[in-house]
């Protein structure tokens, strides 16, 4: 069934979009990430204009994050205070990102920047995650594994403006969470992603938050950052396609629920290795596109009258 998208101005198969949303939703439910880093490149691939893909991708992440947070709230695994601090930084970063996005679009370099950002962050996070989970898998297999200390004092614990985060059991400065939030907000605006794949490792390794509250808190703040990003894109460039978003969301929420079921049956280490491999695969694909000679050297974009 072909469907004409009013904002993207292309006609696509509705079931293709539902399926795409479903697959990404399945993965995001299984791994506890928003899935934006998959949906946006996939939308480019099926011929949705990049600006529409980024803005609509952000809208889709809102839906999957709401669904995820509701599940996490029942387990009391959301640190609202930490979420609020991350959010304050996130808004700043998102606003800056929208501005840079408009600037790069005018210069014709937005595709390159988005691709480079994908390669850099996906490669970094994927490699770190793979290394870490392989190590913990080895450790779990050994009989008397050394117990990890619950409080490791890093440089982040010496900064001023300290605050108590009861749900996370932390007493740290608000500056590092704000910076993490700002970085993620910036990426959300430019890459059309929620930034969970950056946020989750940053919260664990940089802020030292306990793993059980990480996913819920990250999802909580992603809702607001992506909501803000969606709004900003809708107002500044009118590139949010409601029909496209609705189809992706429908497929996505159903996929996410099924993914969550499957995810429970797998071991945490195995899950993380799979996610790391997935992240690295997407990274490798985008990197190849940048390195290999493209079959068409020219591209056509909207212009302005001189």
């Amino acid at each position, binding site marked *: 069934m072909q469907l004409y998208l009013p904002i993207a101005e292309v*006609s696509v198969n509705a079931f293709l979009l539902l399926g795409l949303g479903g697959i990404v939703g399945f993965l995001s439910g299984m791994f506890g990430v928003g899935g934006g880093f998959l949906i946006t490149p996939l939308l480019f691939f099926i011929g949705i204009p990049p600006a529409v893909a980024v803005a609509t991708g952000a809208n889709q992440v*809102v839906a999957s994050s709401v*669904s995820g947070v509701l599940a996490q709230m029942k387990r009391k695994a959301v640190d609202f205070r930490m979420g609020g601090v991350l959010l304050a930084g996130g808004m700043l970063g998102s606003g800056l990102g929208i501005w840079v996005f408009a600037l790069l679009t005018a210069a014709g370099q937005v595709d390159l920047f988005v691709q480079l950002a994908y390669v850099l962050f996906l490669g970094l996070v994927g490699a770190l995650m793979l290394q870490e989970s392989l190590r913990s898998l080895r450790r779990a297999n050994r009989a008397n594994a050394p117990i990890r200390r619950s409080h490791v004092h890093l440089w982040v614990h010496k900064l001023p403006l300290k605050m108590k985060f009861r749900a996370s059991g932390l007493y740290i400065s608000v500056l590092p969470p704000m910076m993490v939030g700002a970085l993620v907000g910036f990426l959300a605006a430019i890459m059309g992603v929620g930034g969970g794949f950056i946020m989750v490792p940053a919260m664990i390794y940089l802020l030292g938050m306990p793993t059980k509250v990480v996913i819920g808190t990250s999802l909580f703040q992603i809702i607001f950052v992506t909501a803000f990003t969606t*709004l900003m894109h809708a107002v500044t460039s*009118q590139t949010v396609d409601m029909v496209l*978003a609705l189809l992706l*969301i429908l497929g996505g929420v159903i996929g996410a629920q099924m993914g969550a079921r499957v995810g429970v049956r797998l071991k945490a280490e195995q899950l993380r290795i799979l996610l790391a491999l997935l992240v690295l695969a997407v990274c490798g694909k985008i990197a190849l596109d940048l390195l290999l000679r493209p079959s068409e*050297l*020219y591209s*056509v974009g909207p212009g302005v009258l001189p």
Partner: protein
Amino acid sequence: MIRAALALWLLTVPAMAQEERIVAGLSQTSVAITADFSGSEILIYGAVKREAAAPDEPKLEVIVTVEGPSTPLVVRKKERRAGIWVNAEAVNISRAPSFYAIHTTGPLDDILSNTENLRQRITIASAVRAVGISDDAEEAPSFLDALLRIRAAEGRYILNEGQVTLSEDTLFRADVELPANLTEGDYRVRIFLTRGGMVVDALERSIGVQKTGMERLIFTMAQDKPLLYGLLSLLLAVGAGWGASTAFRLVRL
């Protein structure tokens, strides 16, 4: 301006050529883009009206063009810099039609002379105009070629030689297929009669292409009330997320 030039030119056409005139019709004068829009086909038909008997030589030929609304464009060329392919040179195109289809009775080079083409801007290349070429782009023609190549691959620029049927030098018909990725606006339909490469008569009609129903509603809202539209999109997302988790919880119980 072009229309004025066309009118002026029509007045100065040799008297003999005036004896053949086009009478034409379109199967539809508007195209509605609805949610299930997957392209449309319009039939352009007509007859040649003449006072005297038709001359045998040169042969009568028909050219039909359909042109979508024009927009300014930028064509960029990728270059390898520091190991990666980045957009380097760029050429501004002041106006290029979003859609352009030429249907003819025969090979365009044979039935249309160069001077006539320049005057009427019939071929795709002559319908596109480039200005404001940036300093470092020495090979502007290759950028134009690239634009034509890319848009032809997208099905936006179509050259269909021999697709117009002309029976007994009088009745003609052309079936023009409009693709699914249409841009809104007025589409200009032009019909030319040529003999020996010279245009004998020309006629212009227009087809309005517009989004209707839901499509129209969503598009205008996104343009006119972006804040409300953004909030509505969010509401949709939050509602769907909440709905899904509730629905699945009920299913499990």
